[in-house]
């Protein structure tokens, strides 16, 4: 979700196989560089593999270009990597968030074969995506400061995952501003 010169990216913490919960501290939001984060929902093994491949590509980019990748460029990279596997896809829906030129927030999401969807307000993915659309649409306001953004994102996330039996066990919220990153674990219904 986009705020005033900042953004928030959040995920739940459950890892499950159908109805069995395997882990309650699973990390789904990964850092690419200080101002670029990617969240990967869907198949856990594909999320981890994709993350490893993207970090690899970004490190190569850093060596060649001697700078960090812009979020828009990174989004195109993710889209290309996903489309390479058009007929045997990675079962992941990424959510990308970063601060671009002049620390302008950038967010986008994709389906599992790389169709990019840019948004100005918020993007969602995962099993609770419909609930998240409803909650975010109701709670979002433009130009929120980091503290208010954190409250809004946490409330929307907790309300939505509480209606989904495959998501939950708390939330992991990152608030990224040009100067710092706040990482918080939100306690919710543990079921």
């Amino acid at each position, binding site marked *: 979700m986009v705020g005033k010169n900042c953004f928030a990216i959040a995920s739940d913490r459950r890892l499950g196989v159908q109805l069995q919960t395997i882990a309650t501290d699973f990390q789904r939001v990964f850092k690419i560089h200080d101002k670029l984060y990617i969240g990967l929902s869907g198949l856990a093994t594909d999320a981890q593999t994709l993350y490893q491949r993207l970090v690899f590509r970004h490190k190569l980019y850093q060596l060649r270009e001697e700078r960090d990748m812009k979020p828009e460029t990174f989004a195109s990279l993710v889209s290309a990597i996903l489309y390479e596997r058009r007929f045997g896809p990675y079962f992941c829906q990424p959510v990308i968030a970063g601060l671009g030129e002049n620390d302008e927030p950038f967010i986008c999401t994709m389906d599992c074969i790389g169709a990019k969807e840019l948004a100005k307000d918020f993007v969602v993915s995962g099993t609770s995506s419909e609930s998240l*659309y409803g909650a975010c*649409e109701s709670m979002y306001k433009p130009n929120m400061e980091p503290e208010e953004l954190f409250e809004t994102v946490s409330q929307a996330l907790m309300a939505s995952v509480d209606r989904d039996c495959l998501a939950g066990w708390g939330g992991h919220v990152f608030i990224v501003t040009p100067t710092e990153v706040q990482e918080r674990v939100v306690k919710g219904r543990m079921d």
Partner: protein
Amino acid sequence: MSRRGDWVYENNGGTCVAIAGADYCVVAADTRLSVGYSILTRDHSKICDLADKCVLASSGFQGDIKALHKNLAARELLYQHQHNKRMSCPAMAQLLSNTLYYKRFFPYYAFNVLGGLDSEGKGCVFTYDAVGSYERTGYSAQGTGSTLIMPVLDNQLKSPSPLLLPARDAVTPLSESEAVDLVKDVFASATERDIYTGDKLEIVVINKAGTTREYIELRKD
């Protein structure tokens, strides 16, 4: 759309919401009727007044919904003739459940929310699945926009856990106008993201003075 000759249902879309208060009940539904990606009409009511303190909102297959409403209205009239009074909301709730389960093996494709005042004058909302499983709650949403609306109602109306003792009321302490504003807000959000919800919103408020109706414009795209 189905080519098979035996598929007898169709989803006409739409969303219904009800919220129970201390002495009122708000029942609301959008007025769009759709088939596939087309709109059939922007002006179709999904709400049926069954008794003076009892209102039913249903979304799903309108053919089955029309039949269901007709059935229930007829049964209510019979009850009136036999008992010399109108049916109470909890009684209608049980009747609706039995009517739905009667067709357990060829169900009514109807997702219902029943709202009204119980015999003590307190708001009550009953929520159903297609085959009659029901529960009295403080608020509910059914239909294509229900997954978008329910988390927001959970967040705003914070129902106490049913595990608490002594049992706490699920009805919201909000005032009638606050509840109506909440309903308008959630429908505005659902209209943005759900293609089957929109056009107009019909809000029915039941309290001890009677029943009032209000129409609000929603996005038409």
